[in-house]
């Protein structure tokens, strides 16, 4: 090795070392991520089921059946609609809460470290544990929410928050139909993921130069004016980045909804549907086709976002 080096330029040596050091990563990502993704595309065009996995895996007869099955099945468009509502509202809520949380702990006070740590708990705690606590809190018989609601708030009967597709909400004598379970699942998602936005917005807030804010104060700008005109514009970059990240993750979300409702009561998002095709029906081909539809849709949405809503695509580079 040492002899070989002499013949090459320094740049060549460096390039070789770079590729050598990166090769374990590349191998892992190539074999466990890139090839599987490509393989999903192949499977999506095969009629592959769990029970004929042994015989049909390498039987490359391509068909569009999976896509017609998946796109034509009852409930597909509903699942798509639920996924979109869940991702858009969930993303907005989690970033909004994160922003508010970051603003209130921006300045030092006693106990700030503890407050900050407690605000991160929903995000670091295991998903299975927190979904179960929410399930029990919202349980009609045993849950504390319904106990408080019926004892103190005068609800006539307990509300099955996670099993009710549509509830009626009376406001000013108007009976409004509300998608109870979907709202609860979105609120849960805001609760669990706001810490992520909180963390990044807080880091950015604390790196902001104090001079601008001070200058605006001297010029007589009130706190709210300083927030809207000075602070918020400087947070635009990090909020745009968080919007993209949170949207991608919420759009692809599986665990939380599956554990909370199994996709029942009008909360079936596309990824839960993919899972049901895979394990419930053992239809691997259809599962692959639907997951491809999900991925393609996300790419289209992201393309639209970057093309029309964000003038500066550098935000993506900043990741």
């Amino acid at each position: 090795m040492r002899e070989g080096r002499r013949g090459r330029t320094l740049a060549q040596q460096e390039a070789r070392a770079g590729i050598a050091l990166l090769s374990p990563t590349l191998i892992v990502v190539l074999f466990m991520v890139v090839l599987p993704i490509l393989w999903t595309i192949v499977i999506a065009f095969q009629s592959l089921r769990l029970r004929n996995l042994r015989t049909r895996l390498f039987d490359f007869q391509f068909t569009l059946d999976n896509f017609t099955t998946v796109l034509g099945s009852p409930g597909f468009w509903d699942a798509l609609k639920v996924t979109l509502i869940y991702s858009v509202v969930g993303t907005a809520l989690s970033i909004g809460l994160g922003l508010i949380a970051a603003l209130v702990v921006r300045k030092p006070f006693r106990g700030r470290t503890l407050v900050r740590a407690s605000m991160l708990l929903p995000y670091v705690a295991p998903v299975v544990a927190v979904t179960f606590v929410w399930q029990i809190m919202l349980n009609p018989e045993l849950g504390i929410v319904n106990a408080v609601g019926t004892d103190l708030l005068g609800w006539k009967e307990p509300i099955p928050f996670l099993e009710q597709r549509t509830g009626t909400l009376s406001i000013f004598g108007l009976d409004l139909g509300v998608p109870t379970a979907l709202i609860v699942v979105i609120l849960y998602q805001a609760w669990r993921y706001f810490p992520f936005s909180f963390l990044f917005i807080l880091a950015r807030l604390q790196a902001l130069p104090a001079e601008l804010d001070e200058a605006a104060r001297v010029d007589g700008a009130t706190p709210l004016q300083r927030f809207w005109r000075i602070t918020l514009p400087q947070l635009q970059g990090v909020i745009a980045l968080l919007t993209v990240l949170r949207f991608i993750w919420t759009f692809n979300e599986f665990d939380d909804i599956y554990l909370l409702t199994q996709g029942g009561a009008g909360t079936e998002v596309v990824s839960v549907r993919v899972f049901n095709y895979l394990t419930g029906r053992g239809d691997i081909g259809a599962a692959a086709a639907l997951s491809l539809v999900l991925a393609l849709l996300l790419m289209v949405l992201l393309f639209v976002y970057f093309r029309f809503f964000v003038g500066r695509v550098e935000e993506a580079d900043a990741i």
Partner: protein
Amino acid sequence: MSRTGVDTGVAERPQAPRAPARRPSRPRPPLSREIVETRILGVLKWITIAFFVVATLFPFYYMVELSIRAIEDVALDPGALWPPRGASLAAYGEVLRSVEDGGQGFLVFLRNSGLVAVASVVVTLAVSILGAYAIARLQFFGRRQVSVLFLAVYLFPAILLAIPLFVFFTRIGLRGSLFGLVLVYVSQIVPVTIYMLRNYFATIPEGLEEAAALDGAGRLTIIRKISLPLAMPAIMATSLFVFMIAWNEFLFALLFLVENRENWTVSLGLSQLAGSVEVAKTTLMAGSVILTVPIIVLFFATERLLVEGLTSGAEKG
């Protein structure tokens, strides 16, 4: 204000000498928008902080509270914020005891989760330290493309990736093994850890490494003796991050291990426990506490490190 001062300045001037007469009662500042907003926001701030603290902590408190109550007691008095008829650790005993002793065998699940998490940390670090160093320090063809490739991985839903891996592992017989699961976790986490470590390596001055290179140290020696010790904070933060992800993960554990009970992780064991009717909700909560406590202890012990490691580079926006 300043404008009216200028306009009427001449007319008011004669009155100026009267000002000292009012000195005993100090002039109260007018109730300006500045002061009103500051006061209201000052109050709102504390209300908001209280709201967030209660909203984030209460579910965890409730989890512990239910886990030490008897289920009959919960059914009688679901709204109690304090175990009204005494606490008992019976639920923990049931969860932790082995199946032969009539329990749920969580000790085995704890061991499995620990094994998977530690193995994921070790392998991920070994792979990503080398990769991150290469991306941060060395010029080579395809360096930028590789970074983009790693980010693109995150566009795809985990469930999409799960399908071919499920098929593949079923075919080669790795489904049900903890080794296969570690492999999946590593591949899922490596792109993020590369990014975290790369940012940190980029902040270490290159001069030290160059000096060592001039002294004739090879590349690997430089990494081991110089870059690694300097990057220790980032490496610690990355390890914790990987540990948490691997410990908490659910989807792949469910897909790969569900048929093989002795290899269940705590997350999977708990989710399967929830499916059976005869298991009381309080037992479920004891299981949840057991699943959560290691992560929370780890988190509080290392919070500062973890937060800095995760958001390093975020300050630039």
